[in-house]
C-alpha cells in the first residue's frame, strides 16, 4: 500500500521511496527503505508523521502517495 493510505498508530515497513535525493535524506534520518516505523499522526490530506524511536519526520502528502509501505 501507499504511505498516504496508512492509518494512525499503524506500524509499517517502508518498501520503496521513489526519488534518489529523498532516499538519501531518509537514510540520514534513519527512516529509509526496509525500516519499520510507526505512522504517528496523519493530517487529513496533509503530511504523515513517521516515528522511529525518538526520530520524527513529516512527509508531505504528495510524497506519501509515492512511498510504498506494508503493514507489519
Amino acid at each position, binding site marked *: 500500500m501507499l504511505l498516504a493510505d496508512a492509518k494512525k498508530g499503524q506500524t509499517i515497513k517502508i518498501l520503496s521511496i521513489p*526519488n*534518489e*535525493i*529523498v*532516499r*538519501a*535524506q*531518509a*537514510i*540520514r*534520518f*534513519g527512516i*529509509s527503505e526496509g525500516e519499520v516505523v510507526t505512522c*504517528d*499522526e496523519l*493530517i*487529513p*490530506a*496533509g*503530511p504523515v*508523521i513517521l516515528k*522511529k*524511536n*525518538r*526520530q*520524527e*519526520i*513529516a*512527509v*508531505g*502528502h*504528495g*510524497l506519501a502517495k509515492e512511498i510504498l509501505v506494508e503493514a507489519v
Partner: protein
Amino acid sequence: MAHCHESNIKIDLPEHGRKIVLAGNPNVGKSVFFNALTGMYVDVSNYPGTTLDISYGRFGEDIVIDTPGVYGISSFNDEERIARDVILSADIVVNVVDAVHLERDLFLTQQIIDTGVPVIVALNMIDDAKRQGIKVDADLLEHLLGVPVIETVAVQGIGLEEVKNSINKAKPGIISHSELQQLLTKMHARVASQGEALLILEGAPIIAERHGLKPGQHREDIYLMRRQRVNDIVGHVISEVKEGTDFKTRLGRWMITPITGIPILIAMLYIMYQAIGVFVAQTVVGITEETIMQGMYEPFIRGLISKVVDLDSALGYILAGEFGVLTMTVTYVLGLLMPLVVGFYLFLSAFEDSGYLPRLAALTDRLLNKVGLNGRAIIPLILGFGCVTLATVVTRLLGSVRERQIAIFLLALAIPCSAQLGVIAGMLAGLGGTYLALYVVVIVSVMAIVGTLLNSVLPGKSTDLLIDLPPLRLPRINNVLKKTFTKSFSFLKEATPLFAIGALLISVMDLTGFLGAVQNFLAPITVGWLNLPKEAATAFVMGIVRRDFGAAGLSDLALDPMSTIVALITITLFVPCIAAILVLFKERNKKEAAIMWLGSLTIAFLVGGIVNKLTGMFASDVSGSWFTIFVFIGLAGLTSVVAKMKKTPQVKTVSQEG
C-alpha cells in the same frame, strides 16, 4: 593541492595555527561551544553566494570556525555546501551531538569520521537524555567511533572545560565499513584528501569537478553502510529507553494536528501582533522614527547639508529632500525597518530554537500545496508581513526555482508589509465588519487564485515536504538574541543600499517630471475604472516609493467607505516598494522581475476595478459587498477545481531537509 581545500572565506590563520571546525545537526547547542572556545572576539563573514554568515574566532594559536547546522554534508542546499567545504578544510572537527537524538546525529558524526579528519565528539544535552530515561554509554561510544567522546550540558557549562582541554586528543575514527575503506583508498590515490575522495564517491559534483573526475555513483550504498553502522552503534550504547509520552511530546503533536494546531498558531500570531504590530510598530517606531529620526536626526542632517549645498537645488533634493538618500532612507531603515525586522527575527529565532517552525511547516503544508508551495514557505510568507524585501531574500530557503517564483510573486502582490499594514488597519478599523470581510476575502482569494494559476502554469513540479521534527525545547535566550542580531544585521546591511538606490531613483523621477507623468497616465484608470478621485493616482505613485506612503496618501482623501475599500484593495495588490522591487531584480532575472512587476500592477487595477463594478451593481454597499465576497470565493473555488482537473503527473524533486 592547497587550492582544493580553500573554503572560500578569507581567514587569517596564524602560523602553526590549526583550523578547528564546529559541526553538528541544527539546534544541538553548537553556538554555546563556539562562545566558550572563542570568548568575546568573534568575526562574522558572509559566505560568498549565500545569505549565510560564518562566525570564526581565536582559540589560543588556533582558529575556531562555526558551521551551519546540517544532517549530513553533501550538496543538497547552501548550508550543506558550506559545512562541507569548511569541514573538508578542517584540521580538527569538534562534533556536537544531541544525546537524545543519537540515531539522527551520529549519521553526520560517522560521515565526518569517514572523511578521515581528527574528530572529538561532545555528547551534549546529556541531562535531557537522563530525564527522558535514555542512558548513553559514552565510553562504549568512544570505543565504537574510535574518537574521544565527552559528556556535556553546554547551557550549564558542564563539560566545556574538558572539551577545551581535550581538543588535542582528537583523532581520526573508525570508517563506516571495510568496503568503504577500500573504495576510499582507491579514490584517495587520485585526489588530495580522504575527505574529497569520500565526497566524490558520494557523488558531490563540485568536488569531483575540481579534480576533473566524474561524480561517483556510490552515495546510496555508502549512506546505507553508514546508516547500518550508526544503527548498530546506537543499539549498543543506548539502554533503558523508557518510552512514554511526556508533555513536550504531546504539545509537539498538538502543534501539528489542525484542530489544536490552528488555535495554537492563531494564539502565536496574536502574541506576535501584540508585540510587533502594536508595541513595536506603534510605540517603539513612534520613538525611533518620529521622535529620534524625524525630530532630531533629519533636521540635524538638513542643517549640515544646507551649509554646503542649497537644499532647493537638485543635489540638495536628492540628498535631503522628500525622498532624500541621507534623510528618508536613513529614517526608513533605522527608524522604521530596524525595530520591525528585529521584532520579527526575535519571534522567528525563538520559534526556530524551540522546534515550533518545522511543526508549523507540517501544519500549513496542505494549504500551501494548493498554491504550489510546501510548508517551508510559511517562513517567508510570515516574514512578508514584516518586510516584503526581507521575505523575498528569505525565499532562498525554498527547494526549487518555481517555488521561489510563486512565493516571491505572492509576496510582491498580496502580502502587505508591516508599515503598510498599520495604515491599512487604521483605515479599515472605522468601517465595520462587512467592509473588513470584503477586503480580507478579496485579498486572500486573489492570493489563492494567482497561486493556483501559477502552480498549474509554471513548468515542473514543486518539491514535497520532508523535514525532521526536532524535540521541543524552551528557546535559549542567548541563542535567540544572537540569531536575531546576526540576521537583522545582515539583512539591514544587504537592504540599506537598495533603499538608498530606491530613494535616489524616486528623487530623480520626481525631478525629471516622470512621477507627474505617471500620475497623469494613471488618472483615467483611477477615475473611470476604479471610481476614485483623480488625486488617488498620487497615492498609487507614492506607493511605489514606500507602500505605507501610498496607503497614507489614501487616508487624506476623505473617501466614502466603498471607495476606501476599493482603493485599499488596489494599493495592497499594487507593486511592492522600490526596495522590494530592487531585491526582486537582484534575486530573479530581469525578464521575470519585469513580468512580476507588471503583473502585480495589472492585477491590482483589474481586481480593484472588478470590486468597484461588482459592488456598484447594488444600491446598498452591504449587499454589494456580500455579492462580491461570494463572487471571489466562487472564483477561487472554480480555479482550484479547474487546476485539479488539468493536473497531470510529472517528474518531481524533493525539498531540502531541515
